[in-house]
Every structure is written in structure tokens, then in C-alpha cells.
């Protein structure tokens, strides 16, 4: 049994060890990524590995300070920190420096500072604070509205900075909410929306509707005991579609087969919905409603994709989904990244012997694409070790979060885990072509002071909270 009231004795050294391992491996790979024969001194601060070494040192000091600060500080100052960072997010919109199309950086004397990175832990703190209040009920409208406000305020300003990647991170909080009681239906619909979103972009017009219609009919069929009832449903759709087909002929307008099918199936669903509501057939109502929603959603996605997303996001999503293959255009990054990782083979080419990363074939090789260096120089052995290390870290975080007595610590712990998870999933997924190229760093690995410090703060606040889990506050 750990001693009460002794922070140092209760610190989870496993997490700290994992943290040190990842940071060290990250630095080794940054060194390899920018290594060349001219600059070999590891302390050369004109090179990225030299700078990263300074930032690692600073991160250690930061971590130490965090461990010294009393836990109540984070509870009481959470709103203030949040407020200050939101203000910084707004300020950066006006005085920030634009890097890679995103206006999200303050530059002070050559060093960059990215408020959106630090916004994450502040949001997590506020979320934890708000949701851990005694008597908090997640399904109250007021609660949901407040949570939405807490999460989407930063998202709004980060989107305004044109930094989509960082904004998407905040959607990972849905897992925290789920753990804290948010209905599983939300997760289900979240997944459905994601699948529909991708399907809407991948499949050309009519196919998706036919699939949706087929799936809906199949579910109707499974739910039904009597064939006659299914025949009625089938008839409802068929008649609606024929109706629109005739309408098309009569008005002599060319809406096309796809539009006729869509309109017909939508009308059919509405009819079934109304009839089943009247007859109190709850299952039928839900199915037709979900079908209606899905069709409307995909229509919206098609429209939104064409009209709302910026062209470089469109191109990147297109590339990811295999819609447009253009190895020298939008797909270039992913292609080169896959080549670098794939060429590593089982055991890699050896440390500092990677050719793809060394000769700049991989873009952003020390930041967003640092995983390529791991893949090329350390091979499958290296990449699986990194993935396993991250998984251990994430699972350890969940396990630690679950052992917290206070809701605040638990919610914050989950937030840390899901934020790190989201970065892990998107960053590595991006380098191996499973995710769109949205530039977010790999925690502890990627080059950059802001991201390293923000992840360090994020993690060590939780380590501090965990160390005081026996305290009452």
C-alpha cells in the first residue's frame, strides 16, 4: 500500500519510463531524419536535433515543476487557464504567423509557440472540472450544451486558424463522454456518420443509395415474421419510385435515374414512418428514420464536400479514399511515406542509413512524418515496438484513470488517453495511408517545442493527479 500524502512515493514510474522511452526514441529519429555528414555534433543548436534536445531538457524541468504544484491548483485554475488560452487563440488569429497555410503560431525571438497545442490540456481540465461536480447528469440538455460549448469554442477558433488537424483532435472527447455516461447510441451514430461520410465520397451517387435501400429492406425482412407485411413495405418503396419515374416522364424533365431512386425511396420511407407511427410499430419507425437520416446525411456530405471543404483537404481526402491517384500531387506525401516505411523491411536499413528520409523524399520528416524514419531505419521490428509502447501507455493511462477516486482525476485521465490516442491513430494512420494527411504530430516523437511541451504538461498533470489519488479535495 502506497503511502498517503507522499507525492513522490505514489508517482506511477511506469508511465514516466514510457514517457522517457518515447521521448528518447523520438529524438534519435529526429537526429536520423535531419542527419547529414556536415553537422554531426548532437549539441549543434542550429540543427533540429540540437534544438529538440533543448526542448526536451525544458520539458523535463516543466514536468518537474508540474509534479511540485499542488493538485488543487489545476482544479481551481482550470477555468482561468482555459479562458487565457481561448484569448490567445483569438489573438493568434490577428498577430500570428502563417506556417503551412495555418495561422496558429506566435513567434517570439525565433521560437514558435502554438496556443492550440496547450488548449488541449486546458479543455481537458475544464471538462473534468465541470463534469466532476456533484450531481452532474450528462443527459440534461444544460449539461450537453455546456460540454458542447467547452469543446467547440476552441474548435471554432482553431478552425478559423485554418488548422483542421488540431481541431479534429477535440472530437476524441466523445470517448470521455461515453465513459462518463453518454449513451452508446451516440457512439453508434458517430461511427455510422463516419462510415457514411467515407462511403458517400468513395461510391458514385447511385450505388450508396442502392446499398442503403438494400440494407434497410434486409433489416425489415429480418424483423418480420409475416411475409405479407414485408411485401407491403417493398410495395411502398416500389410504388413511390414508379411514381417519381412517371412524374419524370410527364413533366418531361431529365432528373436522372439516381435522383428518381433517391426521391422515391425517401417518399417510401416517409410513408412507412407515418404508417408505423400510427400503428405504433417502433422498430419500423426507427429503421425508416435511420434510413431517411442516412440518405439526407450523404446528400449533405456530397454537397458539403464539393462546396465547403477547401481544395487541399478535398484532394487529401480524395487521395486517402483512393478516388484520385496522383502520386506527384496530393498523394505524393503518402506515397513517399509508404515507400520509406515499406523499404525498411523486417529489420530496417540500420540507424542513420535510411535513404528516403535522409535525402528529403519524405516531406515533413522530422515533424508529422517522423514515423517514416522509424519505419525505414528500424523496419517492422521498430514500428511494432513503437506501436506496442504507445498501446501500453494508452492502456496504462486508462487503467490509472479507472483507479482514481475523484471524478476530476478520472475524467482528466481519460482525456489524456483519448487525446494521445487520437494523435497516435491519425498520425501513424496517415504515414501508412490509412488516414487522410492531416498534419498533427506524433506525441513525444515529432520535432517541435510546442507539441512536446503540451504533451508533457498534459501527461504530467495526470501523473501528478494520480500521485495524489488518496488525497481528498
Amino acid at each position: 500500500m502506497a503511502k498517503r500524502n507522499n507525492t513522490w512515493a505514489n508517482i506511477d514510474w511506469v508511465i514516466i519510463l514510457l514517457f522517457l522511452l518515447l521521448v528518447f526514441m523520438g529524438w534519435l529519429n529526429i537526429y536520423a531524419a535531419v542527419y547529414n555528414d556536415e553537422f554531426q555534433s548532437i549539441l549543434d543548436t542550429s540543427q533540429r536535433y540540437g534544438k529538440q534536445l533543448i526542448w526536451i531538457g525544458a520539458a523535463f524541468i516543466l514536468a518537474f515543476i508540474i509534479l511540485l504544484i499542488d493538485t488543487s491548483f489545476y482544479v481551481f485554475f482550470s477555468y482561468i487557464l482555459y479562458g487565457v488560452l481561448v484569448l490567445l487563440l483569438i489573438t493568434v488569429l490577428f498577430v500570428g504567423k502563417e506556417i503551412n497555410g495555418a495561422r496558429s503560431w506566435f513567434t517570439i525571438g525565433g521560437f514558435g509557440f502554438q496556443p492550440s497545442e496547450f488548449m488541449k490540456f486546458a479543455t481537458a481540465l475544464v471538462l473534468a472540472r465541470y463534469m466532476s461536480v456533484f450531481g452532474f447528469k450528462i443527459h440534461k440538455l444544460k449539461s450537453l450544451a455546456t460540454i458542447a460549448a467547452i469543446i467547440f469554442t476552441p474548435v471554432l477558433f482553431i478552425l478559423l486558424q485554418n488548422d483542421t488537424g488540431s481541431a479534429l483532435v477535440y472530437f476524441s472527447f466523445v470517448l470521455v463522454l461515453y465513459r462518463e455516461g453518454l449513451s452508446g447510441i451516440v457512439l453508434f451514430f458517430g461511427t455510422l456518420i463516419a462510415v457514411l461520410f467515407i462511403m458517400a465520397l468513395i461510391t458514385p451517387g447511385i450505388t450508396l443509395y442502392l446499398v442503403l435501400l438494400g440494407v434497410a429492406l434486409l433489416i425489415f425482412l429480418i424483423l418480420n415474421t409475416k411475409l405479407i407485411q414485408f411485401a407491403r413495405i417493398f410495395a411502398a418503396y416500389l410504388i413511390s419510385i414508379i411514381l417519381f419515374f412517371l412524374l419524370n416522364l410527364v413533366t418531361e424533365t431529365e432528373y436522372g435515374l439516381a435522383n428518381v431512386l433517391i426521391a422515391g425511396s425517401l417518399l417510401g420511407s416517409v410513408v412507412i414512418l407515418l404508417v408505423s407511427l400510427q400503428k405504433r410499430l417502433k422498430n419500423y419507425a426507427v429503421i425508416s428514420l435511420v434510413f431517411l437520416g442516412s440518405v439526407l446525411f450523404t446528400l449533405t456530405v456530397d454537397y458539403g464536400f464539393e462546396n465547403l471543404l477547401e481544395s487541399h483537404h478535398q484532394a487529401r481526402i480524395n487521395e486517402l479514399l483512393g478516388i484520385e491517384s496522383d502520386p506527384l500531387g496530393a498523394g505524393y506525401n503518402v506515397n513517399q511515406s509508404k515507400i520509406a516505411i515499406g523499404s525498411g523491411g523486417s529489420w530496417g536499413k540500420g540507424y542513420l542509413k535510411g535513404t528516403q528520409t535522409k535525402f528529403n523524399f519524405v516531406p515533413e520528416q522530422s515533424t508529422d512524418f517522423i514515423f517514416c524514419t522509424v519505419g525505414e531505419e528500424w523496419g517492422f521490428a521498430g514500428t511494432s515496438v513503437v506501436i506496442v509502447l504507445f498501446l501500453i501507455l494508452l492502456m496504462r493511462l486508462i487503467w490509472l484513470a479507472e483507479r482514481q477516486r475523484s471524478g476530476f482525476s478520472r475524467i482528466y485521465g481519460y482525456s489524456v488517453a483519448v487525446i494521445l490516442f487520437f494523435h497516435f491513430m491519425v498520425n501513424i494512420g496517415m504515414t501508412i495511408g490509412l488516414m487522410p494527411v492531416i498534419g498533427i504530430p506524433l506525441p513525444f516523437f515529432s520535432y517541435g517545442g510546442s507539441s512536446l511541451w503540451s504533451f508533457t504538461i498534459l501527461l504530467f498533470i495526470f501523473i501528478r493527479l494520480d500521485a495524489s489519488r488518496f488525497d481528498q479535495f
Partner: protein
Amino acid sequence: MNVLSKRKFVVLAIFAFVGVIFIISLFRLQVLDSTYKQYATNNVLRLVTQYPARGLVFDRNGKLLVYNKTAYDLLITPREVSKFDTTLFCNLLNISKEDLETGISKATKYSRYKPSILIKQISPERFAVLKEQLYKFQGFHTQSRTLREYSSTAAAHALGYVGEVSGSDIQKDGYYKSGDYIGISGIEKTYEKQLRGVKGVKKNLVDVYNRVQGSYRNGEEDIPARIGKNITSTIDLDLQLYAEQLFQNKRGSVVAIEPLTGEVLAIVSAPTYDPGLLVGRVRGKNYSELLADTLKPLFNRSLLAKYPPGSTFKPLNVLIGLQEQAIQLYTKFTCSGQGSRPIRCTHDHITPTNVVQAIRESCNAFLWNTFRSILNNSKTSAEGFNVWYNYVKSFGIGQNVSSDFSNGLKGDLPTEEYYNNIYGKGHWNALTVRSLSIGQGELGVTPLQMANYGSILANRGFYFEPHIIKKIEGDFISQSFKIKNEVQINQEYFKPVIEGMSQTVHQTNLVYTSKIPDIEMCGKTGTVENNQGSDHSVFVAFAPRENPEIAIFVYVENGVWGSRYAAPMASLMVEKYLTDSISSNRKYIEKRMIDANVLNPIQPK
């Protein structure tokens, strides 16, 4: 909270799911799929061709004929080019601003990332100046290439020239890439494979901007270029130069052969040209100028001109007559001079003549009678003709006499069918084809064939394939050069013929112009009838009479008489070759020959 805490498993399951997906994907990408390794190699490896120096060509005495000089190509990589001082650039390279602009846009069209040649073959002198200033021009670099350089202007036709490969060359031989050089004529073409060497490959590592970062695996896999093999020619440079000097302002050809080996000592087609004109950036311009020249300097007369041999053919007809017993050593024919029928004899001489006298006096009447006897010796004229034909053929007339020249012609030796087609089978006889008796008519021979004929006379009945290559460094020359080709004429019949040829030089007017002190040269003049201008001057000879060291054939177009130019020029070359100098009492002849201008087709009688 207990219920909700079970939800941690859902979250953990999501984490694990993503982790497993990643591990599986990475396993596929890194372990199962090997194509990415190939892509990676393609990304970073640039193969740079290493061009070998072309083999050198020496003359038979080891004097350098053809060697290499370094020239530099200026390459441009458009994406690396930044603003530069175009005026300075153009001045350094002596090009116009328009040339530069079109060059750059052409290169950009080809590739923005890959280097392409902007300016070819910059001379070392200009390069030295350019090199100092090159740092001012980003995106430009140079590569060295070797160009041919000639120690003298001699033997342009024999040596041939080198140029860029054509599309069909590339299709025929995968060795060549666009922009490579290939031998286009002469020795350069025939011995291309030996001279070119073998290209090497250097594997360089490049970064994403195609900048060279070093060699691949420390050059372990580099293949060094193997330089071309040096070739020793049979040409005697001094004799060749002397022949070309004699032939200045004349049209025609001379071929000199060492009879016992078949080695070509000199081979001239006049007018000739400076081989240096067809090298480097000026090649295209010079080539079209030479092509447009009405004197046709690019036309290689020694291999391609089909000349009637005229009277130089007479010894051959006499030899056939003797061998076929159509005439005997004691046979004499009377000559009525201008009144001779069916061929009049233009020469004023004693009559009747025997074999020796007939050759000395070049008696047309004797030759007509001999020729008629040969054809009438068989049952039909056609059969007799075929006997004659086979002898002539064995002398290399109408044949590809050498495999060592890439573009030699067979020449014309009419066949039985040829006459059958014209006159009908059985409707022609010796009289019909009488011109053949004096080396006129349908006969067309190349100077190379006639020099070889001189060789056969010198050797008394055999020859070795005339060739121009004596030795290839680290390789063998063709075995066919060693084969002794015998003609079906008994050696004894050469005796009177050679006696007649000796008397031609020493007992006719030729004694004043063509007799070499202390060397017995045997020769036969020819005056070839020409309807388009003055007759051609022809001479075939060898010397010394015993153990001959040189056989020679000289043809001077529009030279009026065989004795006017061809014979004295041949004598000078023989003297020069055998004694290394021209005796003082013959200097005036040398001067007269060198100074003579025979370019006008109409020459005074």
C-alpha cells in the same frame, strides 16, 4: 459507476483494434510487400553513364593518326536555375541571347528536374574561362566528352568520322543511347565495336532535388568504363600525305598496297577534306558545305568510283590468252595503227608485235586478236566468254575484294546473261563485246580493285585481301586477311607480261618522267576514253620488279594520257616509299605534278 466503469473495455477495445490494424498494415507494407524497396531504390539511385575514351588510331609505323581531345558539354537543370547575368553568360559561351532562351525553354520542356545538355562541345580554351565564372550561374554544370582530333589532314576517307547515333542505330543496337557517338564511315565505322570501348555506369545517390549526395555503396557496384582498343592501321602516313599532296587540285584516286600482305599503304580519294572539319559543334555546318561542293569531296572514289580500267586491263587479257593457249609466247599480230579493225590502234609502233612488245606498246590490235582467240577457243562465244569471265573474276574484278571497307562497291563485270539480255542468246560474239579487250565498255572497276590487280601482277598470281588494319590492341584481325587467294594463271605466263610492263616504263616515253633511278618499276598506262571531257589518265604498277614491295594504281580524271599524270605520280610515290626521298633530277617532275591543276574537265591535249 460500476456499470459505467465497464465501458473502459469498449475504450480499450477501440485502442487495441487500431493498434492491431496498424500492426497488420505495417506487416503487409514492410514484410510482405517488397515493391516499396524497389521504389525506394528508384528514388535515390541515378545511373550516370561513364563514357570511355575512343581507341586511338596509329599508322603502320606507330605515328598517331587519330586521338581524342576533351570537350565539355554545358548542362542545365531548369529548376535549380536562379536569376543570372545573361549578357555575361552569352559572352562567355559566344552564343546569342535567342539561342540561350530557346535552349532553356527546350530543356525545361524536357524536364525541370533532370539535367539536359544546353550547349555541346565547348572547347577546352573556352571552358577554362567559363569554369572560373560558373559559380555565378546556379543550375548549370559541365560534363566532359571526348572528341576526335587528327594529327594531320591525311586519310579523311579511310579514317572516316564519328557522329551522333541516329534513331535507327539505337534500334539496331541497344548499346547506344540518344546522344552517343558512333563511327559513321571508314575505320571509325568498320571498327566501331573495338574503338568505342565499353560504357561504364556510376551509381550515384541523389536527394529529392536530384542533387548528388555521394556514390552508392562506396562505388562497389560501379562499372568503370573500358577505353576503346587502339588500332594500328596499315596506312603509311608519309606516303599518304605525299599522295594527297600530289593529288591537290586533281580529281581521282590512288591506292597503294604491299603485295605480299595485302596491306593498304595509302588510299586517297581526291579532292579530299580535312577530317577535323567533321568534329564538334561545326560538324553539321561543315558537312552540308562539303556535301554541296561540286567537286564532291565526300565521295570516296577509291571505293565507290566505277572507272573503266582502259589499257591497264591489257596485261590481264594477255595472261588469260596465254593460260588458255589462245596465244603463244611466239604469237605475233600485225597492227595497222589507225587503220586497225575492228579497233584502231592509237599508238605508233613496230609491227607485228609479240606479247612483250604488245604490252609495251599497248597495241589494241594485238589485244583484240587475243581477246577474240580466247572467246573463239570454246565451242561458242558465250562459253569462251565465261572462261574469260571466270579468270577476270578470280582477279577480284566485279567482286567485293575486301571486307575491311564498310562501303566498297563490287564494280561492274558484265555476265553472259547481261549480253544475252541485250543481244539475245547466241546473237553476240567477240566482235560485239570487243571493247572488253582494251578495258573499256561495260567494265567498271574501283581503284582498290585495280591496286589489288597490281598486287596480283607483282606476286605473279596471288593476292591477300587488301586491308587497312594491321593490328588491334588486345584483339585479332580478321583471319580472312591471311588467306592466300590464287588466280588460275601459271606463274610462267607472268614473265613476258612483266617484261612488257618493265619495258613500258623503261623503253617508251615514260622513261623521261617515270623511270626511278636504281629501281625497276613495272607498269602499264591507260588512257580511258571519256565523252564528257578529256580522257582519264591511268597507271597500274609495282616495284621493284623482283620481290616487289609496293603495288599502285593511280587514276587522274581528265588527265588526258596515262603517261601525263598517272604514271609520273605513281613513280614519285613508289620512289618516295622505297627510298624515302625523291632523287634530285626528278624534283622538277615532282613540282610539275604537285602544281598541275586538272580540275577543269577539258584539258589541253
